[in-house]
């Protein structure tokens, strides 16, 4: 058994403490091992993004503790800086800075954190772009490249300061089906190559079944963790796998569970 890297203990969030609004996420516990690929799956409003933002240090939990490698991430309302640098975030809309070139976007966190000597930053940024499958577009502006390329750049940007964990909030939700499939392949390759721990939020059952070691199922109203499902398919997973009966059955089961949880046939 690999040692747990992220430990969530009764972590919950209410945006309106003491008020009438339903909590965004009921307290729940979860342990994520180093190098694991975990997918948060659920419909809108189930608290999966809220939990991801709390693990990412963007949103303080109202209850429970989040520990990274045994150290609490939050001390009061403040997020521990030395822990946050171990977390890389990728957002749904890529959130590249439109006035910077692709290369400058990847350089930004290196500059802000001053991790490397100045002269080594650009070659390193280029290496990260190549790793994310976005070599040779360093001089382009974000609006000149496709949505899929933007997400590769966003991944390269998150990888640039060598975090242990990649937190991805529906990173491919806005892409067309073909690009999405290609990026799922890329992400698996990248994960196998780097050994990072990845938490990915999605509402696509096929994406979850393809990528995850474990799927954490969320239900809405109020949002909470319902169950954790192991996905046993061997790595590297291929496109052929997605056409296999076993894979189809897994997706089907996920569908039935989610539909059942939401009270629909």
């Amino acid at each position: 058994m690999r040692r747990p890297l992220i430990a969530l203990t009764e972590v919950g969030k209410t945006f309106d403490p003491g008020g009438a609004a339903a909590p965004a996420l009921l307290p729940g516990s979860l342990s994520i091992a180093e190098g694991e690929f975990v997918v948060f799956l659920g419909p809108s409003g189930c608290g999966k993004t809220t939990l991801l933002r709390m693990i990412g240090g963007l949103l303080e939990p109202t209850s429970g503790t989040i520990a990274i490698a045994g150290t609490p991430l939050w001390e009061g309302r403040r997020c521990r800086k030395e822990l946050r640098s171990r977390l890389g975030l990728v957002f749904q809309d890529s959130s590249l800075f439109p006035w910077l070139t692709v290369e400058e976007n990847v350089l930004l966190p290196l500059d802000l954190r001053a991790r490397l000597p100045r002269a080594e930053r650009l070659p390193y940024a280029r290496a990260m772009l190549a790793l994310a499958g976005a070599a040779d577009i360093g001089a382009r502006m974000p609006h000149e490249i496709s949505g899929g390329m933007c997400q590769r750049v966003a991944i390269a940007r998150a990888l640039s300061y060598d975090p242990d964990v990649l937190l991805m909030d529906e990173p491919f939700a806005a892409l067309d089906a073909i690009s999405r499939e290609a990026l799922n392949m890329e992400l698996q390759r990248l994960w196998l190559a780097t050994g990072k721990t990845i938490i990915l939020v999605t509402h696509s059952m096929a994406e979850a079944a393809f990528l995850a070691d474990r799927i954490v199922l969320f239900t809405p109203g109020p949002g909470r963790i319902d169950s954790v499902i192991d996905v046993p398919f061997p790595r590297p997973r291929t496109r052929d796998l997605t056409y296999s009966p076993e894979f189809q059955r897994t997706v089907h089961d996920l569908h039935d569970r989610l539909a059942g949880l939401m009270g629909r046939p």
Partner: protein
Amino acid sequence: MKRVRLRDAVWLPWLVTPCLLAAGLLAWQGFVTIWNVSPFILPPPRPVLAEWVLLLSSARAWSHTAMTFAGAVSGFLLATVLGVAAGILLSLSPTLERLSKPFIVAFQVLPKVALIPLFVVWMGFGLGPKILTSAILPFYPIMMNTLLGIRSVPEGLRDVMASFDAGRFQVLRRLELPYALPFIATGLEVGIVLALVGAVVAEFISGSSGLGYLLVSRINSYETAQMFAIVLQLCLLGLVLYAGVAGLRRLLVPRRAPPRPE
């Protein structure tokens, strides 16, 4: 390569516009001739243009123009520095913004040219009142545009900076100011026109030089054609100032993405 239609590239700017201008001048001439308007009220276009040519070839007139230019530009630069700084300061704290709002509104609704006599009392008839007036008129739009630009930064981009552990100053320098630059540039474009207004009005009251002073000094002698010529000169000056700021915008905001259709 974008194809430019002949109509848009040649016809409209190089043929239609001059024709409209000529038609306007003809109508002006016709109006003056037919209604027999006194040249003290409205001189015909020819003497006005002649006066303007005289103005353009007179070193003294150019030194007056330079005085107005200097006043407007110094005031504008002062307003830029103070306006951007004030906008940043207000963006730092919503509490500060709420506290200062009544004072800002009071200052904004005040017809600020009413302060010019006070400025004269404080600073005499020199360049001082002119620069100050040219500074307080554009201050508000520059400050508000800076504030609006910083407030418009999308939460997603703030999250990105937070995930990089960026400090307050880093967020300002690497995210808020670059994002707000087009907003600030718009504020500057509005501001430069107001700065010129400020300079001319201050010269009406307190000047012993400048185009505003020149204009007022022509009232008693009824040299209406000269007054029109000076107005044309002010128009030229305004164009030059505006073009300067528009050029500055191109320099400051060189590589902006076009808005992405959703």
